[in-house]
């Protein structure tokens, strides 16, 4: 009993505790005072995000030593890998909160539930990054997903939003079923669900059991759904199109990174002995994900839907890095997820700003003339789109550069070639928006969308994202140094 007690370490889960506390405080404010202190929701939440980020950064040994600290009977691990992902999630959530302030006012949906769900979803993602045990990972996945189902349907008077929520719910919980079944089979064969213990067992006993391979395949399906990889991507376009614009930006960055964090930890740390079994499957999924995502994105008229397919394609690039593994491969996953968070949430900030009440202006053709009416926003949007397309000097370019050089170094020449060809294809649909903004005139001047969701907070979010994208592209070495510190103990 004493041993169990001593492994409870509140400092190891302090950032998560702060976020949960802030989520509950926000709910209580609305419960006690009604909507009188409506403005405080965002401040309390942002304070919580800042506090959690501070705790992550100042935890002992953060980004300095390679100490891996286990607690809660080896169910929870704090290492630089989890810290880095936690910072990505916190940045994503912080930016999303800044973006959604005026949007929620416009939609008359300024309620505390939005903020509480956002914070709890972030806690779920952080649990996924820090869990060293399969059931804990599952609980993190579910905390994240259930919050996201509700967030996708948050604008509940809008049919599109309802539809997004129900589709996300059905396919998301379907995927959770596969995930937990995979976990059950792995638990059954190895007799444990703790990741280091599974690795030890497999290193000793070998990995011949068919049940184990089946469990692994089910995990790939489950995580394939959560990261929206082809052929498990069909929910993504509908959900991204229907969900409120700030939520779409949020769910395309943080939760995707979280799914990759858990995916990497399970496959690299617990199941490396099965590598020969999963490498071909993931190779195929990576190629399909890149190609299908980019090709279908070419014909999309709705910009949110286009970015949904683009987000699918980006998951494919990350899978390339995942296959390359090793030091360079993992560096590029972390680097790319950070860059992707900035560029995608930045793009969705501009989309939110111009979407108008009820999100009626989300077609590519609606962006005609935006370059002259909202020059700063158009410039920022072009920057984010260039970064998504992988054009220097942006973070997206450096990220892709690292990914493809890691792939070449590990001998995945064809994968790198397919990836580069894909990013050439993707330039077409990203540039279409830029061309519409600058080179096409709307029929009437009034047709240019008004910046209805513009607020100081949104401007701050756009500037932070732009700064992130540019500094990741221009001064990659500072970030790479930080990422290099984030290596897992198993490398």
């Amino acid at each position, binding site marked *: 009993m004493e041993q169990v007690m001593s492994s409870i370490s509140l400092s190891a889960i302090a950032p998560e505790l702060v976020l949960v506390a802030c989520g509950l405080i926000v709910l209580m404010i609305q419960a006690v005072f009604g909507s009188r202190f409506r403005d405080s929701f965002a401040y309390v939440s942002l304070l919580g995000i800042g506090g959690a980020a501070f705790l992550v950064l100042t935890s002992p040994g953060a980004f300095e030593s390679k100490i891996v600290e286990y607690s809660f009977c080896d169910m929870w691990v704090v290492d630089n890998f989890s810290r880095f992902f936690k910072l990505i999630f916190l940045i994503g959530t912080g930016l999303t909160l800044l973006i959604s302030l005026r949007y929620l006012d416009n939609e008359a949906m300024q309620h505390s539930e939005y903020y509480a769900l956002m914070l709890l979803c972030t806690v779920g993602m952080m649990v996924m990054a820090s869990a060293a045990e399969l059931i804990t990972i599952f609980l993190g996945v579910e905390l994240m997903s259930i919050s996201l189902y509700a967030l996708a349907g948050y604008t509940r008077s809008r*049919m*599109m939003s309802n539809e997004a929520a129900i589709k996300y719910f059905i396919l998301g919980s379907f995927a*959770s079923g596969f995930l937990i079944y995979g976990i059950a089979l792995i638990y059954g064969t190895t007799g444990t669900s703790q990741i280091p213990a599974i690795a030890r067992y497999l290193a000793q006993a070998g990995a011949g059991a068919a049940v184990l391979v089946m469990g692994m395949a089910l995990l790939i399906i489950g995580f394939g759904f959560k990261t929206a990889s082809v052929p498990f991507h069909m929910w993504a376009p509908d959900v991204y199109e229907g969900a409120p614009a700030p939520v779409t930006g949020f769910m395309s960055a943080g939760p995707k990174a979280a799914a990759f964090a858990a995916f990497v930890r399970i496959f690299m740390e617990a199941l490396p002995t099965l590598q020969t079994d999963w490498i071909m499957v993931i190779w195929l999924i990576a190629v399909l994900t890149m190609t299908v995502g980019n090709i279908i994105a070419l014909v999309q008229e709705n910009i949110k839907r286009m970015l949904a397919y683009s987000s699918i394609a980006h998951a494919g690039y990350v899978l390339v890095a995942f296959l390359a593994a090793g030091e360079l491969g993992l560096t590029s996953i972390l680097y790319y997820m950070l860059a992707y968070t900035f560029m995608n949430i930045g793009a969705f900030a501009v989309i939110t700003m111009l979407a108008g009440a009820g999100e009626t202006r989300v077609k590519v053709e609606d962006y005609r003339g935006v370059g002259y009416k909202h020059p700063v926003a158009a410039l920022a949007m072009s920057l984010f789109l260039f970064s998504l397309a992988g054009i220097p000097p942006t973070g997206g370019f450096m990220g892709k550069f690292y990914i493809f050089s890691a792939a070449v170094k590990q001998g995945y020449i064809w994968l790198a070639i397919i990836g580069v060809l894909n990013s050439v294809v993707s330039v077409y649909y990203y540039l279409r928006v830029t061309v519409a903004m600058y080179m096409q005139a709307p029929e009437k001047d009034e047709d240019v969308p008004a910046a209805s969701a513009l607020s100081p907070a949104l401007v701050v979010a756009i500037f932070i994202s732009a700064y992130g994208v540019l500094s990741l592209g221009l001064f990659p070495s500072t970030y790479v140094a930080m990422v290099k510190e984030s290596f897992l103990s198993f490398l």
Partner: protein
Amino acid sequence: MVSLNAYLMLGAVLFSIGAVGVLAHRNALIIYMCIELMLNAVNLTIVAFSRFLNSLDGHVYVFMIMTVAAAEAAVGLAILIALFRNKPTVDVDEINLSKG
């Protein structure tokens, strides 16, 4: 005594029925039930493993999964009610605004 394989087969069959049901049925409520069936098939599998491995961990996992399933059902039904207010249907084929 019933062998472990019998329990695992039953779990696999129930899981498959649930998975096929999610894909084949058009009524959202039946789809919800099929998802519950999938999760309960997993519970059965875990309890069987736990019994035969002589490890208590599995029992705890099952409680966690039951809690998750309850939370999921609550949110799922809330989403369905929100949808029903805008369009009185539970047929997923009629929920088709976004396509392409």
